[in-house]
């Protein structure tokens, strides 16, 4: 079961974040979408 946090819905602002990418560069949501829409693909990791 997923934790009791409501996934943001279509039309909502996506929750902001800053994360490192696999090369170590810091990436913020604001910067990632600044040039155009972006597809965020969550995967379970390695599989």
């Amino acid at each position, binding site marked *: *079961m*997923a*934790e009791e*946090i*409501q*996934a*943001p*819905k*279509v*039309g*909502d*602002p*996506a*929750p*902001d*974040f800053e*994360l*490192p*990418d*696999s*090369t*170590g*560069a810091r*990436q913020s*949501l*604001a910067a*990632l*979408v*600044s*040039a*155009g*829409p*972006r*597809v*965020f*693909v*969550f*995967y*379970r*990791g*390695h*599989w």
Partner: protein
Amino acid sequence: MAEYRDQYEKIRATGADVSAVSVDGPERSESVRRQFELPFPILCDTRREVAKAWGVLNPESRGGIAEPAVFIVASDRRIRFSSRDSESKRVPAAAVAELLAGEARPDAVERRTLIPSVRDFLRAAASVFRFGMKSPRE
């Protein structure tokens, strides 16, 4: 992930881009990125903060992982499309590309059973062999 590699050119042609997100650390993610020849970055949510805030964290599976999900976020940071998926039934990357290209309607996107190619399956198996099944917390 491999699907998004195969659709990447079409997605880029619409002016959009792709980021993958998982709870794996940078070393493992970079290894996956190279193995699968992904042309886009993988974000490392090792603290599970983003998976939690975006409502896709499954804390009970393998030490806490993000369930498969897809979000399209526009430049105004609003979510244009989202799909919470499962391993066995997911939105095909081709459908996401069609959405971005305006060739499909968001409410008409089908989830399908997707089977990886043998080559991608072997790449995934090699990653598990190297790093194990669990992803440690930071």
